[in-house]
């Protein structure tokens, strides 16, 4: 050591006092699609390109707890991620990937305990020690209720599942993050930085309150459990403020864990987080600009050493257009590698230490966030704040302010509301037009896989495992070991989730049909009621409409507004609820002898779902008796396709006047009645 050289403020020193530099964050790409085999190939090629961790995307049926051969799953298999039906699929997914060397992050929530059980199952059957496993199950149901929609069970049961995972992991898989408190999705749903800070921290505090209350841990264990709480955050385009937000997160978490939970060890108070930068702000217009947005957003979570992410995954430049292709993901990966390995970023201590400007901004964010956290804790924590709709309406308000600002041009988005003229992008050339198309055979493979597992397993062992799981769910003992036995016994995803559905029931959001406020009154409503009265005389019954949501996205608001509006103008409404297969919706309509089916679809699978609706109507011989209307986020190109399939009316977000929609549906029923009279 050269003693004459005193350490410099711009140097990082290692434990020997030698100038050093930091290790880079974990570099990952959020990916998975089609089938376990295809995803495995993708993961292995990503690892070969220098990616240092895995981030697994699951398809909606896996996230919502359905097998691939369930009728409700069919249109969604392998769409937004990989389908996993059983331990056999999980082995395929990690084929030739050494799990003991991986840091694996799974974006899984309602079925998180199940996917962890499957991962444990892979390790056990390979003879890997559980203590060697590292990674994260996202497992944050609070943000599912608020923003993301793949919840299954009611809040109290969901929180019990989360708590039991912490209790299991603490000593069995000490390097596993049982859950990831997500502020990511809150920003995607419109949250301001203050709301992101406050809602995420209130969520973490409420979870720790619950774990403490359950009394399963000694004080020493509880302190370590606090140390296992990790976060998943978002980083937007206002990157200076975002950097300050991350510093505020770290300081606030340190303060709350010390003040509220008495955590002595500084190590367990550290704010550990992974990040995916913002997708909400990525544009479909001039998509190549998104590459710069992603770059700048990444700076917000890497520049400051004291508030640097532990793991980073980046979206792809064309995410607003489609799922990314392997090349698009590689492009994002290369940017992380350049930042971590080419630049000198990792050689310096914190760059903003002592900055008056940054200090002042961080203090402001902390003050506002504390106020909001106090408000939520004053309501009794996050569960009451969700059930009362407080948090949801705060987000909805922020989101509409954001959209209004973009519409008026107060918030500039380059290529979207300013400088919209541009040359055509050569990136969108190529044979595939710059977008990814799914292999159609994926769904067939997934169904074959689950059938094979059921045929080859020991049926008695599987049945006994499911019974033991239900027994644990009922008597309050931990469901983790029974879940692992289910995994080893080749129980399927749908069977595991179905068993717990039987015991816990399913959550239905508090937005409830009766709570809807409608702006429906006046002459047009009166006139419509008269027309419906006349229709009732002609038909021999009040016109009947079946309203339901085929598919797996959990956003029930649109369907509920339509159901309530229809009753308000005089329809008899059969509201079928969310997460239905097209078969179930058609069955309702046939048994109820309905005049109209109103289907709300936001999952992007409207073409497949409409096709299934019409197949089922034909199977019941009811095609010429029941009209179908569809509402949802439907791209203009697909509107014509739906009309071509026989959908009578397509309503998109531009049809926001409820009375217009109602009149249009009544026109339809009238036309049918007149047609019948004429013929």
């Amino acid at each position, binding site marked *: 050591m050269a003693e004459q050289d005193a350490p410099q403020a711009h140097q990082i020193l290692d434990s020997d006092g030698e100038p050093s530099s930091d290790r880079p964050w974990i570099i990952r790409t959020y990916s998975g699609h089609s089938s376990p085999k295809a995803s495995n190939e993708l993961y292995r090629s990503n690892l070969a390109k220098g990616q240092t961790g895995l981030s697994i995307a699951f398809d909606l049926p896996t996230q919502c707890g359905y097998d691939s051969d369930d009728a409700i799953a069919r249109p969604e298999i392998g769409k937004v991620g990989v389908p996993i039906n059983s331990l056999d699929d999980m082995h395929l997914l990690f084929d030739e990937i050494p799990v003991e060397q991986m840091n694996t992050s799974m974006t899984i929530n309602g079925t998180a305990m199940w996917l962890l059980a499957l991962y444990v199952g892979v390790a056990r059957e390979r003879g890997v020690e559980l203590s060697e496993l590292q990674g994260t199950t996202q497992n944050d149901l609070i943000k599912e209720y608020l923003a993301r929609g793949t919840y299954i069970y009611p809040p109290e049961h969901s929180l019990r599942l989360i708590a039991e995972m912490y209790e299991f992991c603490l000593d069995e898989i000490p390097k596993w993050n049982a859950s990831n408190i997500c502020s990511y999705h809150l920003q995607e749903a419109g949250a301001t930085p203050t709301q992101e800070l406050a809602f995420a921290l209130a969520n973490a505090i409420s979870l720790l309150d619950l774990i403490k209350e359950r009394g399963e841990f000694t004080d020493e264990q509880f302190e370590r459990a606090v140390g296992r709480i990790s976060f998943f955050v978002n980083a937007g385009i206002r990157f200076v403020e975002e950097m300050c937000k991350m510093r505020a997160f770290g300081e606030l978490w340190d303060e709350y864990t010390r003040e509220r939970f008495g955590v002595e060890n500084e190590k367990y108070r550290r704010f550990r987080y992974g990040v995916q930068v913002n997708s909400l702000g990525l544009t479909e217009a001039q998509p190549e600009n998104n590459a710069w947005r992603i770059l700048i957003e990444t700076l917000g979570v890497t520049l400051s050493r004291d508030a640097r992410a532990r793991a980073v995954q980046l979206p792809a430049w064309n995410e607003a257009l489609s799922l990314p292709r392997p090349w698009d993901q590689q492009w994002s990966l290369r940017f992380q590698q350049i930042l971590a390995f080419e630049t000198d970023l990792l050689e310096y201590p914190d760059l903003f230490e002592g900055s008056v400007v940054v200090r002042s901004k961080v203090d402001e964010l902390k003050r506002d966030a504390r106020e909001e956290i106090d408000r939520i804790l004053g309501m009794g924590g996050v569960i009451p704040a969700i059930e009362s709709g407080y948090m949801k309406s705060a987000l909805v308000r922020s989101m509409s302010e954001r959209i209004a600002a973009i519409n008026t041009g107060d918030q500039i988005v380059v290529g979207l509301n300013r400088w919209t003229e541009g040359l055509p992008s050569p990136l969108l050339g190529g044979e595939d037009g710059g977008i990814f198309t799914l292999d159609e055979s994926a769904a067939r493979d997934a169904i074959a896989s689950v059938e094979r597992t059921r045929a080859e397993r020991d049926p008695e062992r599987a049945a006994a495992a499911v019974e033991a799981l239900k027994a644990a769910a*009922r008597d309050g003992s931990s469901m983790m070991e029974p879940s692992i036995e289910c995994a080893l016994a080749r129980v399927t995803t749908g069977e595991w989730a179905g068993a717990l559905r039987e015991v816990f029931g399913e959550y239905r959001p508090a937005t409830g049909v009766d709570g809807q406020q409608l702006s429906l009154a006046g002459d047009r409503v009166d006139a419509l009621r008269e027309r419906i009265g006349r229709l009732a005389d002609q038909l021999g*019954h009040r016109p009947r409409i079946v309203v339901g949501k085929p598919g797996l996205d959990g956003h029930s608001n649109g369907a509920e507004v339509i159901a309530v509006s229809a*009753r308000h103008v*005089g*329809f*008899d409404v059969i509201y079928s609820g969310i997460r239905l297969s097209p078969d179930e919706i058609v*069955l309702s309509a046939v*048994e109820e*002898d309905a005049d109209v089916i109103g289907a709300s679809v936001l999952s992007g699978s409207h073409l497949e779902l409409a096709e299934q609706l019409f197949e089922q109507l034909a199977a019941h011989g009811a095609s010429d008796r029941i009209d179908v209307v569809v509402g949802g986020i439907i791209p203009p190109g697909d509107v014509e396709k739906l009309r071509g399939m026989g959908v009578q009316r397509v309503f998109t977000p531009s049809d926001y006047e409820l009375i217009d929609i109602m009149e249009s549906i009544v026109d339809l029923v009238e036309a049918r009645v007149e047609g*019948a009279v004429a013929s």
Partner: protein
Amino acid sequence: MSDTTDELVERARSLDKGSVARLISRFEDRRPHMAEHRAEVLAALDGAGVAPTGTIIGVTGTPGSGKSTLLSRLTVDLLSDDDSRSIAVLAVDPSSQVSGGALLGDRTRMRYLPDERRLFFRSQASESDLGGLGPSTFQVCRLLTRLFDCVMIETVGIGQSEADIRHLADRVYLVLQPLGGDEVQFLKAGIIEVPDAFILNKCDEPSSSASYHQLRASMWLARPFDEEAPPIFRTSALTGEGLDELEADLIARIDTIGGAGLREREPYFFGRWVDDEWGRHGVGVLRERFGGAERFLADHGGYETAQAAFADEVLRQP
């Protein structure tokens, strides 16, 4: 409408869902000329030797008592208990008095067996905001008891209108939830006199034991003349507790020929139909000019012809 009545009836007898649904619509349709179509359907069924022998089970209770969830479990169990058994569920919900429209059928809780013909689910609007039976529930039962072994009528019990179900069902169950304060309310409303059996649901909840004893105690007060107290079943759709006993009770009733009383009850429902269509004026005419519903039905050779005849009579009035 291109299918003939005979074709529809033939398919409905094999429980084809679309055909059963369309026949139900005919029995719900209150336009005068539909009486003729109903007579046609009944004649076709009679001609095929199909009698109204299905058992009518009434299940009533306040919203939130968990009766939909309970019913969905019971129907699954009853169907798997006997491969030949068939069940129709008729769920009656209140209508809005402002718009006339209704939000019907908690079908989400009945989510199973999409290909199972032996189970049929239909919603009905009560056309009143108090709950109780709808104006055509009786009519629809005349059809369904000819097609299914069991017709379960689920109603929201809120007031006196609930007494109607006693006239229609072979056996009525009242579903209560622990400590809903229901015991006292039902006692006051006289509703406690209606059911043949009580179901104290959600007995997994800690307060259920106290509720059970309270209910037991109030029974003697409310029904002092019963030879033996009506049974109280304690159930939980969550844990499955008590379902075996309740199902045994249901099966015993379903396996006995039911619906025999439908004819006996015709006068009551004829009177109610007159009241629905013509109000007090009609009821007065029926009583004073024709000596009441029973006489009128006897004089006019059957329900459908009696309806047509009465409509003529009333319309002929100045």
